[in-house]
Each structure stands twice: as structure tokens, then as C-alpha cells.
């Protein structure tokens, strides 16, 4: 079920609203993609990493002598070696410091301890196995609440005399006094602890790079798999500058190639990248580093790990009046979150969700523990998943507590369409929305009334079936420059369009596809604006020597920011084309009107020039005084974020004997404003739903009390297969963003944000009559069985 948008261009042109087949696919389906491990340079060396078995230990000594005897092993680099170059620490995107290699102390299991450089992948691995490190184990803190105790050992003594604590920062938003007063005055108050565990994006391609320092040309080329190549280039330049190395930003070229999935995990700078650069600098040869899956799962940045305590107040009829949320955020041993600098807890304060109430207060405290760095997004916009999970769980608990249907309660609390733009009590201005329409559509698609009847009948028979709703609001498109930056770099994004004389187009963008289909959708934006067919438009990105500076693709910001830049750049071209057309038509520019790729004289539709004719004239017949060429660049600073939303309904059945949860049906109605490519939007939603389904039921990185990662391979970190994954049913409503040039919002992450609470709400709904109020994700069979067992449910 979908509210259709009528395309304004022909299918041949393929502008917005057409399901244009992807331009990038021919290379992928023929095995001709070029991913990072496909890049091999002449004379290349291999880097592999010795990792710590301990989560916290002193390094007494490192003995590389056996490793150096292995044929092919060229060098072993330790923290002490890097210390000589001041390269043993590097800044994180959150402004904290992270070790490249430790000089004396390791802080988490699988932390990098030494790097082996060898002539082959196999020799490097043998070298790693032969390096002997003598450790003295230290006490381990894996629980952030333990870390905050006054007598806890200080994990980061390097932070200076004023910061001898494991507390990293405190951040709050909203009005605490008003929230307290609202809760005190409420007829009904509910409170709930909710833990959202550590998970890992686990893109099927791991991270890696090939660093190529050319000592003669003093040029560093870093081939890598990064979602933010320009930011990486700047960070590298800063690190090199700090170390006094002769590597400057104009001599650094970051090149990304094809990326086998990102989801936030390929935003940070990992020690392996710096090590490969350092090794190439030291050897004068290209050095390749490719993670294996265990390294990826054990050492790359993680998502979530939020311990949330929420309180909500409401009238006895169920009108929400206040919300107060206190959160402990486990960041591991360093704060490496890719959050904007003013938002240490990301956009978590969008926690009031889709609901209209005045009083909210949110606070978050970041904490160090002996775990790898946390804080990447896992396919969401800076902590919005955590916020949505909390509010959607709380709303559901409220509904159940007062005996009101959860759909009805949502309907009665939604921000209404006429209230937009709507300012939340934590200060966000929502651009547009029609939440009731999306929920209504989802209820019709799934036959909500029928399901409730079926559930009542089944409950009579003792069968466990649950229905869960999530009506989420996302916050994407970081972001307006007055509030959003990473390491001081404002979060604009960019597009440069060049129209060649023969009417073919090259456009370069500052964002970076990892499968979203930028080569197609950005061409469609230009097709929409200028009337060139998509087949005549080539989109480039990911080469910092050629693409305009941009902050990259994460947090669903490509369409909201770079998409807007593309539309604006196209409009600059259209405007120049108008003057060219006026010259060619010997008419006044003011008398021309634009329709379907041509400028024509108002009232004389047969007097026109096509954009292709104009493009040729821009190089062959432009008027005196006008610059030749037809090019434009735009660096777009969005006036606001965009707020896509949706309503999801999920039906689950629970096996009483084993605790296994089966998602029987899942309906997702999304609204991402105007749609560029419906096929791609649907694909994004399918994928997002699956990455919401996965942590709801399967994925979790757990640690034992010694800080060992217990999910270090895909044998234990369980990605869902096609067998478990539901056959997603999708619907759309369209509520354009009023401030975006093409009325679009982001969509890649909505479903990952919205799906987990729908599933959690369904499972709790199935068990509510037994006295169950909350189950933390992942809702594994063992967890559900334990509850059934405790509640005395017979198989």
C-alpha cells in the first residue's frame, strides 16, 4: 500500500519517482567491483596485528626475535617504536585520545599490541603467532556501574590530574524541574530500566587499507574502505602534523573504491590504518592491512551499550505529560563515538519521539571500561535508535498499564499534522509529519482488528501471540552548521556538476556510497532538475583529489545534505542555462520558462532550446562577457535536520517449550518525504528492517568478567539468514520536508531505528498477562524461556 508520487520526468530521463535500475550493478553482478582487498600494488607488503589476550594488562616486554626469523617477515613495530615518532596515540572523532599501539598498558581484549610487516599475508600471520608478549594482568572493569564506584581503579590515568575518574562526561537536555513537576503531578507514572546491549555492524566486508607512501613525490595515497574519506584525510594530516612528519593534506589522497557495507563501522579511524601508513612511511613500500572477521568483531568500534532508566507520567486517560531519562553510556576505554562535537550522546534527546508533551529531561553520563571503543551508530543517526527504543517501550508499557490499546494511545498522543513545524521540549524542530496516517495505513495493511481478535482467542487456548507497534520519528541529515561539526569541521556537504559540451554530465559528491546507490539516485536528482537522462550522468565520489570536500555518508545524511547540494548546484546550472538560452533565442531571460529539460519563450512553446543544445553553446556560442562552460559547485548547509517517520506493526508467536520467538508478519509504513527512487527506497527499508530485526532477536556482543569478547566470530555473533528473516511488507506515505530543496528526507536508517521496539513490544505484548513489563533485546530463546519458566508457564 503506497501513496504514489507522480514522476515529473519521462522514464527515459528517469528523474525523481522512477525506479531506475542501478547504474553501479553491472560491475557487482559480474564480480568486477573493486573492494579494498582487491587493491594490490606492486611491491606491496602485508601488515598483520598482534593482539592482546587480556582486557587489561601491563606489557612487561615484547620479544619479536622468533617472528623476525620467519622468512618474509620484514619488521615488527611496537608502541615504543611509534612513541619515537609521537604516533603511539591518535585523536578519536569525539576528541578523545586512542592508542595506535600501547607503550605499556593494554586496555581491552584484542587491542593492537604490535604490527608485523611481511612480504605476504601468510608470512605476516605466522609472524603474529611468533611474537611473544609478556603481560602482567591487571584488574578488569567491564561494568560501567562498577567503573563509576569511588574506589574503582582509574582506567585512563593519562587524562590529567583533574580527570582521575572513569566518568568521561555528563550531558543533559530539557528542563529537569519541569519534568520532575510533571511526573509528580501525573495521575499515572511508570518507570523502567532498559538495557540496549553492545552490537556490531558486521558489514560483510571487514575494514582495511593499502597505504602507499611515495618518498620521491612525497605523496601518500591511502586506499581504504571509509564512509568519510575527506574527514579521514584531514585527521591523517593532523596526526602527521602532530608527529612532525612531512605529510600534508594536499599530499594525501584518500581513495575509497567500492565498499562492502558500512553502517557506521567505517566512519572511525582505526589503529590499523595509522599502522599501515606508518609502515609504508618507514619502508617506502605500499603496505596492505585487511582485518579478519574476529579482529573486526573484537576490536572495531561498537554500537549502543546504553543503560537507560526512564520515567513517564500521564493522565489517567493516557495523555503523556512528562518524561525523565537517566542513562549510563559505556564507551569502552576511549570515547571514539562519531557524534557531532556538541552532542556527546548523539541525538539521544530526540527521545520524546512522535508524541506531543511539554516536559522532558534527558541526561547521559559517558563511562570508561575495559572494552573496545564504543559509540558508532550501527545504521542510525547518532543514538536515535536508543531514544526510539526507550520512548516506544515506555509508551507501550503505559498503554498496557492503563488498559488502553497501544495503537489508540499512540493516536491520542501523536503530534498532529497542523502542529508542524513542531518544537520538542528538548529543543528539536520537527519539519513535517503525519503520524496518524502512517499508523492507520499499517493497521489496515496488517488487519490490526483481526489480529487482536485472533490473539484473544489464542490466549484463551494458552497460546502466546503478541502484536507490537512502533511509531517512530527519526532525526537525520546532520547537519546545520551552527550546531553540527565533527572535530570542528562543519557538517555541510557538497556537489560539483560539470556539463560537457556534448550534453553529458560528470558530477562529484562529498558523500560516499556503501551500497545505497548514489551513482543512480544522485544522477536522478540531476535528471529531475536539468532534464539530462540518467544514462548521460556519471556520479563520482570517494577520491579526495577530485571530489569536493564533504563529511561523508552516515546518519542518513546523503540525501538530506549532499542531495540538497546536488539539487542546488543543478539549479545554478539551470540559471546559467537560462541566460545562454536567452542569448541563443534572442529573447529576454525574464521571458523564458523551464519545462522538461528546455528553456522556452513564454507563450511560444515552439521557441525553445534543450539543455543539450545549451550545453553545447556554453562552450561554442556563449555571449560576450559570459564565462565559458557549464559548471557549478554547491556546499549545502541545511537549515534544519529532516525528520522521517513511520509506523511498524509486528506479529510474533512464542514457542512455550523453548522460548523461541518467530516473527510471523511485519508491516512497515515509512514516510521519507519525496522519493527519488522507489525501488531503492524499498531496498533500503528491507535492509534496515533486517538490521533492526537482528539485534532484537540475535545479535549481541557479550563479555565475560575478564573482558573476553564472547562473540568473536560469526559462529557466535549471529547474523540472521534468509530462513529467519521475515518477508517484509512495506507501505509508504509521503509528507515532503518543507525546507529540503527536493522535499526529501533520509531513509537508510529509519527501519533499523523503528523495528526493534516493534518486535520487543510484540514479545512483551504476548507475555503481558503473565506480568512481564520489559524484556531487553536480544530476546533470545534462553531469556524468554527463563521468564516463562519463572512465570510457571507449562510447555
Amino acid at each position, binding site marked *: 500500500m503506497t501513496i504514489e508520487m507522480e514522476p515529473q520526468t519521462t522514464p527515459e530521463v528517469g528523474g525523481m519517482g522512477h525506479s531506475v535500475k542501478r547504474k553501479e550493478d553491472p560491475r557487482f553482478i559480474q564480480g568486477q567491483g573493486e573492494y579494498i582487498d582487491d587493491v594490490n600494488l606492486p611491491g606491496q607488503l602485508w601488515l598483520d596485528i598482534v593482539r592482546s589476550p*587480556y582486557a587489561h594488562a601491563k606489557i612487561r616486554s615484547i620479544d619479536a626475535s622468533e617472528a623476525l626469523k620467519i622468512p618474509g617477515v620484514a619488521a615488527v613495530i611496537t608502541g615504543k617504536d611509534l612513541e619515537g615518532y609521537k604516533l603511539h596515540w591518535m585523536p578519536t572523532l569525539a576528541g578523545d585520545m586512542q592508542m595506535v599501539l600501547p607503550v605499556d598498558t593494554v586496555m581491552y*581484549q584484542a587491542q593492537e599490541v604490535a604490527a608485523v610487516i611481511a612480504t605476504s599475508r601468510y608470512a605476516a600471520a605466522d609472524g603474529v603467532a611468533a611474537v611473544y608478549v609478556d*603481560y602482567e594482568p591487571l584488574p578488569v572493569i567491564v561494568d560501567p556501574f562498577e567503573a563509576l564506584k569511588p574506589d574503582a581503579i582509574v582506567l585512563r590515568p593519562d587524562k590529567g590530574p583533574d580527570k582521575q575518574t572513569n566518568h568521561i562526561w555528563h550531558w543533559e537536555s530539557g528542563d529537569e524541574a519541569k519534568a520532575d513537576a510533571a511526573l509528580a503531578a501525573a495521575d499515572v507514572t511508570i518507570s523502567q530500566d532498559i538495557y540496549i546491549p553492545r552490537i556490531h555492524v558486521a558489514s560483510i566486508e571487514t575494514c582495511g587499507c593499502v597505504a602507499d607512501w611515495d618518498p620521491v613525490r612525497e605523496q601518500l595515497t591511502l586506499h581504504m574502505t571509509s564512509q568519510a574519506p575527506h574527514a579521514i584525510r584531514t585527521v591523517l594530516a593532523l596526526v602527521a602534523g602532530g608527529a612532525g612528519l612531512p605529510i600534508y593534506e594536499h599530499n594525501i589522497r584518500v581513495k575509497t573504491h567500492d565498499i562492502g557495507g558500512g553502517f557506521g563501522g567505517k566512519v572511525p579511524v582505526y589503529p590499523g590504518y595509522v599502522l599501515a601508513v606508518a609502515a609504508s612511511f618507514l619502508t617506502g613500500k605500499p603496505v596492505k592491512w585487511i582485518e579478519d572477521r574476529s579482529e573486526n568483531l573484537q576490536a572495531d568500534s561498537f554500537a549502543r551499550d546504553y543503560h537507560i532508566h526512564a520515567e513517564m507520567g500521564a493522565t489517567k486517560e493516557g495523555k503523556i505529560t512528562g518524561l525523565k531519562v537517566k542513562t549510563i553510556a559505556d564507551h569502552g576505554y576511549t570515547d571514539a563515538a562519531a557524534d557531532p562535537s556538541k552532542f556527546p550522546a548523539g541525538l539521544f534527546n530526540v527521545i520524546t519521539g512522535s508524541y506531543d508533551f511539554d516536559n522532558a529531561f534527558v541526561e547521559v553520563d559517558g563511562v570508561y571500561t575495559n572494552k573496545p571503543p564504543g559509540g558508532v551508530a550501527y545504521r542510525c543517526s547518532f543514538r536515535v535508535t536508543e531514544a526510539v527504543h526507550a520512548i516506544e517501550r515506555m509508551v507501550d508499557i503505559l498503554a498496557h498499564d492503563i488498559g488502553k490499546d497501544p495503537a489508540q494511545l499512540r493516536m491520542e498522543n501523536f503530534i498532529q499534522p497542523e502542529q508542524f513545524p513542531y518544537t520538542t521540549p528538548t529543543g528539536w524542530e520537527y519539519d513535517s509529519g503525519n503520524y496518524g496516517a502512517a499508523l492507520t495505513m499499517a493497521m489496515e495493511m496488517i488487519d490490526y482488528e483481526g489480529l487482536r481478535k485472533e490473539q484473544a482467542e489464542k490466549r484463551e487456548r494458552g497460546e502466546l501471540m503478541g502484536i507490537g507497534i512502533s511509531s517512530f520519528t527519526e532525526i537525520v541529515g546532520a547537519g546545520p552548521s551552527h550546531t553540527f561539526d565533527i572535530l570542528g569541521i562543519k557538517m555541510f556537504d557538497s556537489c560539483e556538476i560539470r556539463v560537457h559540451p556534448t550534453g553529458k554530465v560528470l558530477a562529484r559528491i562529498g558523500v560516499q556510497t556503501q551500497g545505497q546507490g548514489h551513482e543512480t539516485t544522485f544522477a536522478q536528482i540531476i535528471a529531475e532538475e536539468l532534464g539530462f537522462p540518467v544514462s548521460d550522468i556519471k556520479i563520482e565520489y570517494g577520491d579526495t583529489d577530485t571530489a569536493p570536500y564533504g563529511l561523508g555518508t552516515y546518519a542518513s545524511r546523503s540525501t538530506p545534505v549532499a542531495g540538497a547540494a546536488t539539487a542546488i548546484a543543478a539549479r545554478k546550472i539551470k540559471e546559467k542555462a537560462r541566460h545562454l538560452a536567452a542569448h541563443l533565442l534572442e529573447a529576454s531571460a525574464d521571458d523564458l520558462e523551464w519545462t522538461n529539460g528546455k528553456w522556452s519563450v513564454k507563450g511560444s512553446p515552439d521557441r525553445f532550446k534543450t539543455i543539450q543544445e545549451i550545453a553545447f553553446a556554453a562552450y561554442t556560442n556563449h555571449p560576450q562577457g559570459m564565462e565559458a562552460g557549464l559548471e557549478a559547485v554547491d556546499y549545502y548547509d541545511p537549515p534544519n535536520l529532516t525528520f522521517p517517520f513511520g509506523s511498524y506493526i509486528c506479529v510474533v508467536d512464542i514457542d512455550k517449550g523453548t522460548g523461541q520467538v518467530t516473527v510471523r508478519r511485519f508491516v512497515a509504513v515509512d514516510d521519507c518525504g519525496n522519493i527519488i527512487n522507489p525501488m531503492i527506497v524499498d531496498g533500503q527499508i528491507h535492509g534496515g528492517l533486517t538490521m533492526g530485526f537482528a539485534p532484537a532477536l540475535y545479535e549481541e556482543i557479550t563479555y565475560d568478567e575478564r573482558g*573476553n569478547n564472547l562473540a568473536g*566470530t560469526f559462529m557466535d555473533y549471529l547474523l540472521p539468514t534468509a530462513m529467519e528473516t521475515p518477508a517484509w511488507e512495506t507501505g509508504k506515505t509521503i509528507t515532503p520536508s518543507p525546507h529540503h530543496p527536493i522535499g526529501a528526507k533520509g531513509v537508510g536508517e529509519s527501519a533499523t531505528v523503528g523495528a526493534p521496539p516493534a518486535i520487543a513490544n510484540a514479545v512483551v505484548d504476548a507475555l503481558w498477562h503473565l506480568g512481564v513489563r520489559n524484556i531487553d533485546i536480544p530476546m533470545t530463546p534462553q531469556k524468554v524461556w527463563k521468564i516463562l519458566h519463572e512465570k510457571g508457564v507449562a510447555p
Partner: protein
Amino acid sequence: MLFSGTVQIDAPRARTWAFLIDPDKVSSCGPGVESVEIIDAANFKVRAKVGVGFISAKFVVNMTFAELTAPDKAVIKASGQAPGSAVDAVGSMLLSGPPEGPTTMDWSAEVDISGSLAGVGARLMEGTANKIVGQTFDCIKAKLEG
């Protein structure tokens, strides 16, 4: 992981005690020991191939007599490393019974495994560790009685 047990050893207390405080002898019962290097009276280094079935890893283990209270209590600390993994163990042995024997040995062992063995091998680890520890003390009994 904490394991404990009791073995009845048909040997005099003094001989049992002497066995326990002799690095070569006590090491001879360690799993898969290939060599023992004495560092000083309290410290010795063992190289061992530890495993179950054909699954095994080569460890370098630093052993220390943490407590020797003749003639009844010995505590041995072991800290061993294999590529990507580490094992830290504290074994306590308490002897009782008449001087001429049989000697009762109450033992306990706290074994902590770190690194990839703990992660990827978790499914196999507890049973394996339990078995290896048990075999060690059974071996002590067998050698003293044999």
C-alpha cells in the same frame, strides 16, 4: 572457572610434599609439558602443548610457588601464553592424613582463560579445562603411587 576435588594418594605425606615442591616433578604432570626451565627456587618456566583431542595450543607458562607451608599447603600460580590467548591459574593443594599415608589431597584450581580461546572456544572450554585440571591431579596420584 573454579574446579575442585579430592584425591587419596597411597603415599607418605613427606614424599607427597616433596613431589609437589619439585618443579620438575610437579610439572611432569602438567598437561602436554615439553620442557621445564628452572629460574630460581620459586619460579620456573614450562613449555607445554595443551589441548584435547587434536585441538591444542602451545603455551609458555610462568610458574610460581606462591605459598609453600610445609608439610600441608602449596599454592602454585601459573600464567601461560599462546598466540592470541592466555591462561592464568592458581592451584591450591592441601594435604592431610597420617604421616605414613595415605595422604589426602584437597585441591582447588581457579582457571581464567583470556583471548581467542575464551572467545571462539567458549563452547568447548569449560569441559576441557575441567578435564585437564582433573587429569593433572590424577597424574600426581599415579606418579606417587607408581
